[in-house]
């Protein structure tokens, strides 16, 4: 049907939750001769788990993901999207269709090395997220699913908005740790046109982690934040800043968020043992049993810029 519409030369818009598309159509920012609603395509609304991977249909909503225990990082990213109305209607496919530079899901999926399944009259194909974002979806195609590896360790997603209430991110950060394969992945959204991976900081962290305990020294978590600030400062082109914002604040905040996110994943060990013996778990935020709500690294470091003492 998409193909038929496409061949007819008509401008076709795919409609999932409509949270981005409907306002765009209304303001005239987008025009469409036809709208194809995907809501009733039930195949798109399933999510599933294989031995190594998780597959999420394009029609799965944020609300569907919020409580998903198999992917706590994804659940957390979904939880902090918009308001409850947006979470109830907004979808994974829509997030990949809109490609908002600070989209929460996009930042998380970037850190999680996700792959995207698209379908067109020529068949289906899997592409790494980065390639998908570079090439886009074919004019007669659509996104049908996303696939990611089953979590192999703690994952954290944090962001900053413009107010206390739900708000799209100004800066977002996802950290995904794989304790089995000894990997640390960090993505920052909201600075460049697309979320960016922090390769240098990631390899630094990999070397600093004590993989047997899954911990990292306090200083290393701070340094991680500083490396993120440096990497983010080099991103180009940068997104234009919104009113009241500044580019250097965004870089600074990215470092603070990254340092805190890493610290939450890798329960940092102070060189002088100041760690309290017991801390409460924050199961929603990371892999159960690995995250702590409070840890010394969340303090200064990149995070220490301008902080008091």
């Amino acid at each position, binding site marked *: 049907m998409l193909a038929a519409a496409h061949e007819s030369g008509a401008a076709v818009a795919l409609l999932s939750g409509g949270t981005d598309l409907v306002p765009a159509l209304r303001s*005239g920012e987008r025009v469409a001769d036809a709208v194809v609603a995907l809501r009733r395509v039930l195949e798109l609304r399933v999510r599933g788990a294989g031995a190594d991977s998780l597959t999420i249909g394009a029609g799965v909503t944020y609300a569907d993901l919020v409580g998903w225990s198999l992917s706590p990082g994804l659940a957390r990213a979904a*939880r*902090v999207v918009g308001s409850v109305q947006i979470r109830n209607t907004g979808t994974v496919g829509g997030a990949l269709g809109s490609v908002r530079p600070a989209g929460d899901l996009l930042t998380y999926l970037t850190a999680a090395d996700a792959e995207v399944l698209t379908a067109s009259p020529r068949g289906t194909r899997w592409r790494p997220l980065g390639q998908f974002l570079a090439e886009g979806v074919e004019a007669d195609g659509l996104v049908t699913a996303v696939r990611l590896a089953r979590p192999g360790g703690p994952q*954290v*997603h*944090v*962001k*900053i*908005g*413009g*107010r*206390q*209430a*739900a*708000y*799209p*991110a100004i800066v*977002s950060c996802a950290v995904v740790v794989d304790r089995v394969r000894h990997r640390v992945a960090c993505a920052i959204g909201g600075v460049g046109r697309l979320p960016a991976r922090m390769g240098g900081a990631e390899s630094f962290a990999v070397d600093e982690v004590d993989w047997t305990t899954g911990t990292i020294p306090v200083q290393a978590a701070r340094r991680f934040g*500083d490396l993120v*600030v440096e990497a983010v400062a080099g991103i180009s082109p940068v997104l234009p800043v*919104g*009113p*009241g*914002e*500044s580019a*250097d*604040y965004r870089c*600074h*905040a990215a470092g*603070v*968020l990254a340092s*805190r*996110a890493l610290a*939450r994943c890798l329960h940092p060990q102070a060189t002088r043992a100041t760690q309290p013996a017991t801390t*409460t778990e924050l199961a929603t*935020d990371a892999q159960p049993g690995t995250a702590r*709500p*409070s840890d010394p690294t*969340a*303090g*200064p470091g*990149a*995070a*220490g*810029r*301008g*902080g*008091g*003492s």
Partner: protein
Amino acid sequence: MRHGIGQSVRRPDGPAKVNGAFRYAGDLRVPGMLHGRTLRSPHPRARIVRIDTAAARRLPGVAAVVTAADVPGVATYGLIVADQPVFAAAEARYAGEPVAAVAAIDAATARRALAAIEVDYEPLPAGTDPTRVLDPDAPALHPTGNLYREIDIRHGGIWADGPVAVEDTYRVGMQDQAFLAPEAALVIPAADGGVDLMVATQWLHSDREQVAACLGLPEELVRLTLAGVGGAFGGREDITLQIHGALLARSAQAPIRIAYDRVESFLGHPPRPPARMWFRHTATRAGELVSVRARLVFDGGAYTSSSPAVLANAVTHAAGPYRVAHARLHGVAVRTNNPPCGAMRGFGVPQVTIGHEAQMDRLADALGLDPVELRVRNAVRPGDVLPTGQVLAGPLPARELLHLVAARPLPPPPAAGSELSLPGGLPAGADVRRVRRGIGYALGYKNLLFSEGMDDSAMARVRLDLDEDGSPRVRVHSACAEVGQGFVTVAGQIARTELGVEQVVLAPADTSVGSAGSTSASRQTWMSGGAVRGACVAVADRLLARVARAAGLPARVVEMPRHSLRIVAGEIVGAEAGLRIGLADALSHGPVEAEFTFHHRRTTALDAAGQGDPHVAFAAAAHRAVVDVDLDLGLVRVVSMALAQDCGTVLNPLALRGQVEGGTAQGLGLAVMEELVTDGGRVVNPTFHDYLLPTAADVPELDFVAVTEPQPDAPYGVKGVGETPTCTATPAIVAAIRAAVGRDLRSVPVRPRDLVDLSPSGAVGPAPSGADGPAAGGATPR
């Protein structure tokens, strides 16, 4: 009396507003109506070389296209000075200025028609820096020049300074009223050559005067009815789409619906003027204020709007509610090519309250005094002479307010476990150990009603008759614009109390009754409330006189019937005359009607030295704010707000609470997020995505205490209550943030980037320790 004054009567339109049934101006439709839309200049300043509307007129479905050439009457309008063109003709002076309007069969066709209008602009260098437009070499942005008004208040004898001084410059951004229901009107051409408008406005009669002048019609032929208003806050005091809609309706000879979308709403009405303010305060070492100097620059934007009156408020309130022997308060309101600015809740006072309260905190620091103690020591009392020479009359319990608010219980400290309650909310993942708490206070006062010799009277008409079932009924007719402030309950409460009749209907507000004046300046409960009360008293007098005459009572009773007869619970009772007659019986001889016009006491203009008796009365408020700040991210959460306010007699406690909560929320918005940002004169964030408003998650519950000393010259002793809390909420929050982060804050709204150290050296080690900021502009004890 049930539902009389003093009771928490609920709004009659409350349920409809909550369940979506209420008809706002934008919901009005009639069969056959056309859709109006406005074309706006994209340039902050440009010569208009040519406008060609031929192509737009030829489009199928387009019924009318109007430009400056089609304005039959006066080409300009304005609240104080008529300098704003209905449409820009030779020169456009701000980005967003209307250039043409079209009417078409639907909104999409209207939009296409706008695109088909050809306008050749020749951009001119725009004057967008308010501190430069008065430079000798600055070009005149308008034939009348770049100065709207200058006020220079000199107070005190031979100048003296105290030994401790603080001075600094502050900046306040442009806050928008951001009411939720955008501007809308339905305009219908009438068979008599006139025009009927149903419009959401704050002042029907002022609209009528301006619409009639521009249409070249006698005022009787321009009839306005208030349509459902969804918020105003000053933003509907100026004309926006009224004249455009009327021109289109007359040109197309068809009903026009004209309604703004969000972007157009931001561009269409004048927001609160941004301000740059320099202050210098001096005090004795014991903490007695000796002198205050202020220099204010208010950016009025491209046209006058309310700027002269806003400036008068700002300058006369610049020293705050404090006794000061010497004051030199100077201010200018200037013309720029920024959007025209005008009236918004607080009307010039919020800006200066931010300035003088920041100064009081710094003075307290310099003196080593507690900030509340310093304010208590210096707060004005009735009988004190204000910098204008006006003697402060009436109650103004400033010190009591400070004591009350400081004694409110404090919230528990920030706690781990609930991210929702930490700065940044759920997603930011604030670290509770990096969260610092701050507490701040602000005291302020605000004038009530119109100032400087204005006789802004209010008229109301009241009729007492019997309904279809033969029960007594009061009908109140007033042109008072209900914009959410609560006249719809108060008018009924007054009528019930005065006439002892429970059934009160409020006639639609329209121009078939005399002017009620503007719903602004905290004035309607006092002014239109006074008019309703006066009319009710006159109705009672007439009815009682009629009853006395019919009962054959002596002439002295007929002349002064209230002395012998009273209306009690549906009956007219005259104890000494032995008379008792049901109200329904008394009214069976016909209805009774009366009109009353209420005037407040006369004030005077300011003379050349800024001296006079400019303000009718004042009301004060004191806020205490408690905030948490994430020191690394600069994110702020307002944890608690306490307010003690000087309210006069409370007519409706529930409505009072609504006003002070709303006022506090709007002040919170200005403190931490609300700013319409311009870049070279262009508004860059005219959407609710980029112009953020506080939501329920951002505004803590308000801990509120009312002080209820009656205002002697006001009906029932009321005071206006809606504006005062807006003036003090912002500086209290800014003070609390300053206390949390230990830096002086000179720009409002305060942004996260202002609270963290972004310098490269900021990466190493913690910076400020809670001591004062840099020496530049800091406290300078001598």
